[in-house]
């Protein structure tokens, strides 16, 4: 099992979720984060003072998936999030040792979906 973390552009969230659904990855955890990346972003301006804009609004996705879903998941995210422009984001894959469904107490890969 893997724990996949993806950081994407906020406006791409819907498309990414759609792509994931198409690939039968239905479960996800989504949160707002601020990212510092290569992208410099649209500088904000306040009373003619330009904000460095080094921290940009992004969305973070977390997905626990079974091993045979990893590639499909990465591809789905990439497909949904890619524009080819700087700031598209990254995907990180960590190893997931255990997964528990609280409702049933079920463990392991059966609990993921």
């Amino acid at each position, binding site marked *: 099992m893997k724990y996949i973390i993806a950081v994407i552009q*906020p*406006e*791409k969230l*819907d498309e990414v979720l759609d792509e994931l659904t198409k690939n039968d990855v239905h479960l996800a955890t989504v949160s*707002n984060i*601020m990212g510092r990346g290569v992208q410099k972003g*649209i*500088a*904000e*301006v*306040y009373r003619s003072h330009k904000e460095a804009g080094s*921290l940009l*609004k992004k969305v973070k996705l977390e997905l626990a998936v079974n091993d045979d879903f990893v590639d499909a998941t990465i591809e789905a995210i990439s497909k949904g999030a890619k524009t080819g422009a700087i700031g598209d984001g990254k995907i990180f894959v960590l190893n997931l040792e255990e997964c528990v469904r609280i409702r049933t107490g079920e463990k392991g890969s059966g609990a993921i979906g």
Partner: protein
Amino acid sequence: MLTISRRISVIVSLCLFSYIGLISETFSNETSLETINSGDTAFVLVCAALVLLMTPGLAFFYGGLVRKKNFLSVLIQCYIIIGIVTLQWVFIGYSFSFGSSELITGFIGGFDHFALKNVGMEAKGTIPHSAFMIFQGMFAIITPALIIGAFAERTRFSAMCIFMLLWTTLVYDPVCHWVWGGGFIGAMGALDFAGGTVVHINAGVAALAFALFVGKRKGYPDKISPPHNLPFAILGTGILWFGWFGFNAGSELAADGIAANAFVVTHVAAATAVIAWAILDWIINKKPTVLGVITGAVAGLVAITPASGFVNPMGAIIIGFGSSSICYFFVAYLKPKFGYDDSLDVFGVHGIGGIWGAIATGFLADEAIGGTAGSLAQTMIQIKSVIITIGYAFIMTYILLFIVNLFVKLRVTTEEELIGLDLSDHRESAYTVLE
């Protein structure tokens, strides 16, 4: 959609022909030579301040309902409209609307008050002329501001500014003149105490035209997130309700019994509409909702506007109840069928509510209040004035949109729309995330 607008066009073309014949002698509403009354002046000035406050109130009412990334764009549009229309009003708008000479008889005022010439501290009725001018100016401000709800979240700021300047001059000012400035609608006996045709139908129909012209938001209807901050929308509603007392009661231009009646019926209609919408929500969606309650409040306030100087409290209850029912039906059932994207239901609430209110004034008017009794004849006059306003507002708005769009694209690019107008058009964010 096309069929609808086509059908409307046909109706309007017919009207266009007929009302040209209708234009009759205009009355000058200059009754001056009276002296200034301090109570009336105090009242009208405070009411003017209340009406100004409605525009920020509207900004929050609308702004709370859009997505976070477009919040500022709605707010700045409201404020920039205050700026644009005020200057337009001072230079030419007041003169076009209320000039005693007329450029086109019965249709639009002349240049006699250009740059507020002869609009000073002298009495007009029982108040200073400049007080009358600024009170009316506040109406000219909020009317275009109402429209922005229809095209929110996808319209280019620069194009909007140009459009608003044109719209105010070529749609608001003439219609205002027709009804209140001595023009042909007033002359034919139509009742519009505080702006059913001039303000709400006018703005509502322009909103519809704009929504049709500019097209749906990307993702509409299923991928548009819910109102990002309902409390702000509720705050805006409270401010609107408060300001509406100035709007309706102030339209009497004096602190007297009719003003008091207008105040009362305004409140009663709004309260009734709140209850009506909540009950409909309760029945249909199982739960009364906050968005329903505030939409009902606005629907009630809209519908009572033309009637507020003519109906009694029982009439107000009927108007409020009717407005919520009709607008509810329109917004929840008809609009989704039509499939156009009037983002914040400007047509569904201001247009439809205004039409209902204007017509209902015709049969609910109480002779004891405003001197006119409700009748079939009066209702027909009301309907006529409504149709004329709808036709003119729709066609002219559409033409203006077409022209503006030739020079500056009204719709932002898809990328800008996805990023959000706050950042793409104004380089700002409503809220910071950290700290």
